[in-house]
C-alpha cells in the first residue's frame, strides 16, 4: 500500500527530540493577533505536562529491539503483542521513509528520539489562571466550552474539576449497551482477544515506514467496539477521555463496528493543541462489518510552527478503514489546519459488496506549512461506491497537495467513484497541487475526477466589503462557503468550531 514508490535512504536529525525547536519568533509580541504568534507566545517559558497514571521513566534515546521490549514491558503487555511489535520493528529497519510526497522535510533523526517518556506529574499549570491569556482568547474565539479549556491548555488533570466524572458517566452509559470505549492499553488487558483479532488487519505492520514505526513503538490510543445492531447514542470523542487523551506521539486507534452497528467518532479538537513531540506517527484502523456504519471526523490543529517555518509538528498518519461486510459504510471527514507537515491519506478498502466509502477534507496551509493529504478508495467488492470531496486552501507560503488514489479491482463490478478536489489560493507565494491516481481494471466501473484551482475572487471580496464586512470577515465568509460541502459532513458542534477555526487559521493572510 502507500503510494508504493521508491523510498531512498534518509537520515533524520533533530526533529524528533522530545523538546523540539518550538521557537518563539521575536516579533510575536508585535503581532499578537495571529494564531501562530499566540501559540508561540504561549510556549514561551512554559512547559505543560502530560498526565498519565503510569509511574515511568524515560527510555534511553534511540530505537533498538531493546527499546521495543522496554516499552512493551513497561506496559505489561502479553507475549503476543511484544512479538507483534518486534515483527514491526524488523520490518521498519528494512524500510526508509517515503520520498514521493511533495514535502520538503528536514531529515529526521530517528535514533536521536526518545520513544518512551512518561510525562512528569503536575508539570503543567495548576489552574487556568496560570495559562497564557492569549491562548485563552483563542479558546474563546473558537467557542470552546469552559470545562474543556483547562484540559486543552494542559492543566494537570487533578486540577480539572469535572472532566473525570464526565468521562466516567459516559462510560457507564456506553457499558450498558455493550459498547467498549477505552484506552488501547486497557483494551489489551481486558479485551485481548478482540484486539488480537483485529490489530493490524487493516494496516499491517509493514504497510509503510511510519505505520511500521508506530506498530513497533505505539504508546497508547483508543479502542472502540460496538456490538451487533447497536447504534451508539453519542458521538465518541476524545473530549470524553481527557485524562487518557494525551497518548503521545505514536497513537494507535482501533475501532470495530460489528454487524449492523453505527458509530460516530470525533478525534482531535479545534483548539490549538500543543505537544512537545515534534514527530507524530499515528495509526488508525477502522473495521466495519456487514451493514455497519462508521463516521470518523478529525479536526487537527497541532502547532504549525512560526511564520518562518521554525518548529511545528510533523504529522505522519496512516488511517485506513475496511468495509469488511456487505453494505458497510465508512466515512472520513477531516479539517486539517495545524502541523508544519501533514502526511495523511485516510483510506477505505471497500471489500464488501455494496459497501460505501467517503472522504471529505478541508486542508489549510498558511505561512510555511506543507500538507500532502488525500485519500485512497480501493474498490474490491461489487457495486461499491465512493465519494471524495477535497478542499485545499493555501495562503502565505503554504504548499498544499491533494494526493488521492481510486483503484477499481477486476472483480469490482459496477463500482462508482466521484472525486472533486478544489483548490483556493490566497496570495502570490503559496502553492496548490493536485495529484490524482486513477487505476481501473474493470470496464463496468464509472470513475470521475474533476478539479479546479482558483483564487479568492476580487468581485466576491469587493461585494462583501461593500456591504460593510471587514476584510477578514469577508475572507472567512468566502472560505467557509468554499468548504461548505465538507463542513456539513462534520457533527454539528464540530462544524461550528471548524468554521471559526478556518477564520483563525487564515488570519493575516490578506491585506
Amino acid at each position: 500500500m502507500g503510494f508504493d514508490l521508491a523510498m531512498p535512504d534518509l537520515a533524520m536529525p533533530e526533529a524528533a527530540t522530545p523538546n523540539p525547536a518550538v521557537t518563539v519568533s521575536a516579533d510575536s509580541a508585535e503581532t499578537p493577533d495571529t494564531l501562530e504568534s499566540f501559540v508561540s507566545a504561549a510556549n514561551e517559558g512554559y512547559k505543560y505536562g502530560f498526565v498519565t497514571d503510569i509511574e515511568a521513566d524515560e527510555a534511553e534515546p534511540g530505537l533498538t529491539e531493546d527499546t521495543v521490549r522496554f516499552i512493551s514491558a513497561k506496559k505489561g503487555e502479553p507475549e503476543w503483542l511484544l512479538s507483534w511489535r518486534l515483527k514491526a520493528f524488523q520490518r521498519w529497519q528494512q524500510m526508509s521513509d517515503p520520498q514521493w510526497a511533495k514535502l520538503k522535510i528536514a531529515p529526521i533523526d530517528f535514533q536521536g528520539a526518545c520513544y518512551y517518556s512518561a510525562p512528569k506529574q503536575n508539570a503543567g499549570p495548576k489552574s487556568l489562571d496560570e495559562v497564557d491569556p492569549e491562548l485563552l482568547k483563542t479558546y474563546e474565539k473558537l467557542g470552546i466550552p469552559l470545562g474543556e479549556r483547562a484540559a486543552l491548555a494542559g492543566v494537570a488533570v487533578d486540577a480539572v474539576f469535572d472532566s473525570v466524572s464526565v468521562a466516567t458517566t459516559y462510560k457507564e452509559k456506553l457499558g450498558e449497551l455493550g459498547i467498549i470505549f477505552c484506552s488501547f492499553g486497557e483494551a489489551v488487558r481486558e479485551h485481548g482477544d478482540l484486539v488480537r483479532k483485529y490489530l493490524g488487519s487493516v494496516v499491517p505492520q509493514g504497510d509503510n515506514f511510519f505505520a511500521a514505526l508506530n506498530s513497533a513503538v505505539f504508546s497508547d490510543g483508543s479502542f472502540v467496539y460496538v456490538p451487533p445492531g447497536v447504534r451508539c447514542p453519542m458521538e465518541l470523542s476524545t473530549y470524553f477521555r481527557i485524562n487518557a487523551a494525551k497518548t503521545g506521539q505514536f497513537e494507535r486507534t482501533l475501532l470495530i463496528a460489528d454487524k449492523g452497528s453505527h458509530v460516530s467518532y470525533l478525534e482531535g479538537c479545534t483548539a490549538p493543541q500543543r505537544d512537545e513531540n515534534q514527530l507524530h506517527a499515528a495509526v488508525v484502523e477502522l473495521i466495519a462489518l456487514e451493514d455497519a456504519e462508521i463516521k470518523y471526523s478529525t479536526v487537527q490543529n497541532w502547532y504549525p510552527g512560526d511564520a518562518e517555518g521554525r518548529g511545528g509538528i510533523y504529522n505522519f498518519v496512516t488511517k485506513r478503514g475496511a468495509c469488511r461486510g456487505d453494505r458497510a459504510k465508512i466515512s472520513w471527514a477531516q479539517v486539517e489546519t495545524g502541523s508544519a507537515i501533514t502526511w495523511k491519506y485516510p483510506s477505505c478498502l471497500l471489500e464488501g459488496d455494496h459497501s460505501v466509502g467517503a472522504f471529505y477534507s478541508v486542508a489549510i496551509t498558511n505561512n510555511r506549512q506543507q500538507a500532502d493529504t488525500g485519500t485512497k478508495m480501493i474498490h474490491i467488492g461489487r457495486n461499491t461506491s465512493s465519494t471524495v470531496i477535497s478542499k485545499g486552501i493555501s495562503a502565505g507560503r503554504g504548499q498544499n497537495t491533494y494526493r488521492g488514489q481510486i483503484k477499481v479491482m477486476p472483480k469490482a463490478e459496477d463500482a462508482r467513484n466521484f472525486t472533486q478536489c478544489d483548490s483556493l489560493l490566497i496570495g502570490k507565494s503559496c502553492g496548490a497541487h493536485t495529484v490524482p491516481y486513477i487505476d481501473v481494471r474493470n470496464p463496468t466501473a464509472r470513475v470521475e475526477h474533476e478539479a479546479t484551482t482558483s483564487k479568492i475572487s476580487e468581485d466576491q471580496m469587493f461585494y462583501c466589503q461593500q456591504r460593510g464586512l471587514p476584510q477578514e470577515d469577508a475572507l472567512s465568509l468566502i472560505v467557509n462557503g468554499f468548504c461548505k460541502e465538507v463542513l456539513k459532513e462534520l457533527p454539528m458542534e464540530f462544524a461550528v468550531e471548524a468554521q471559526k477555526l478556518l477564520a483563525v487559521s487564515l488570519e493575516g493572510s490578506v491585506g
Partner: protein
Amino acid sequence: MTISEQVAPFVRAFRTAPGISDEPEWLCAHRDASIRHFAATGFPTRSAESWRFTDLRPLTASPILPAPDAVPNASERALADPPPSDPPPSELSVPTHRIILVNGRFIPRLSRIGALPPGVWLGSTADTVKARPGLIAAAFDASEIVGSQPFAALNAAFFADGFVLALEPGAVLETPIEVIHLGRTDTPVAFHLRNAIIAGSGSRATVIESTEGSGPGWTNAVTAITVDADASLRHIRIQNDGSEAIHTALTRATLARGARYENFALTLGARLSRQDIQVALSGEGASVALNGAYLLRGEQEATFAPHVDHQAPGCRTDEVLKGVMQDHAHGVFLGTIAVRPGADQTDARQLNRNLLLSPWAHVDTKPELEILADDVKCSHGATVGSLDEAALFYLQARGLDETTARHMLIEAFAADVIDTAALGDILSAPLRRHLRDWLGQVGGAA
C-alpha cells in the same frame, strides 16, 4: 540485473557506433557525456514516479542495440535489409514535402522534398549536420545529460539520422511536411531518430509524422522544437508501428511570446509505447493545444505523458486525451500542468477520458496540477467508464445490430477529440481514417 550489467552492451556498442561522419566536436562530446549519463542511470525502473505504471520488461529483457547498418547515407545495396522499392502512400490528399526514413536513416530515393520557399530548410539530420551545423545545436539540450530522461540520453549517444525543419522569421510554409518512418526488421534492433523543428518568429508550418512497420524494432525518437515569437506550428504524430515493435518518443517544445503549438498524437501501434511531450511556455501569451487518442488492443501498453510548464503570464493550455482499451490492453496517462510563480492569468485545462471495452483492459490515469501562482484558472478532469448501455440500447432499438452500434459509439467517443483539435479537413482526414481502420479490427462483442 544490475545497472552495470544492463548498460554494458550499450557502452560496448557505443565504442563502435558510427555516428555521423564529420560531425562537429561538440556533438561528439555531447554523445560521450550522454552515454556516460545513461551508464550511470540505466533504464528507468518502476520505483521512479513517472515510470511506475509502465512495464519496460519488453525493452530491458535483452539489450536492443542500434541496427549495425544504420549508417547514414550508406549505399542502399550494402544494406542487409533493403528498403522497399516504392514509396509508401501519403497520409494526406494534398501534395507534401516528404521525408522517408527506413530503419532510422534517410532514404533520398523514396523522399521528395521538392522546392521549398525561401527561408525554409528541410533535410535529414545527417545532411543538416554537414550542411547547416548551426541549426543542429538547437536539437540538443543539457537536460539529456543531467536530467532523468535515460531514453533521450541513449538517443543522443546513438542517433544517426532524423529530420530537421528550420523556418527563418516570417517564413510561411503552406504545403505540409510529411515525415514517414518505416521500421522493417526481423531482429530486435533500435532506431534512434533525432529531429528538430525551429520556427522563427512569425513563421508558420505543419508537420505530419507517421511511423509504421513490421518486426520487433525499437524506435526511440527525440524531437526538439522551438517556436519563436508569434510563430505557429501544427504537429501531428501518428504512431502505427507493428504489433511487436517498441516505440518511445520525447518531444520537447519551447514557446516564446505569442507562439502557438498544436500537437495531435494518435497512438495505434507497438506492443509497448511511451510518448513524452514537454512544453515550456516561456513567453507571455503563448498557447499550446495537446490533443490525441490512444486506441489499444491485444497486449498493448501505451503511456502518454504530457508535461506543460507555464513559466510566463497569460499563457494557455488545452489538453484532451482519449483512450480506448480493448482486450488486455493497458493505457496510462501521466499529465502534468505546472504553473510557476508569477505566471498569472494562466488558463489551463486538462482532460483525460477513457473507455474500457473488456474485463481485462486496464487504465491508469494521473492528471496532475502543480500551481504556484494565485491568479490562475486551472482545471483538470479524468473519467473511466464503458459504453453507455442506454445509448447502446437506443441504437439497437433503432434497428442497428450490436456491433454496428458499439462501433458507432466508440467512433463518436474517439472522433470527438479530432473535432476538438480543429485541424481542418485535410489534416483530420487521415486521423479519422485510422480510427475507422482500427474499429474495423475490433471484435463485435467485448
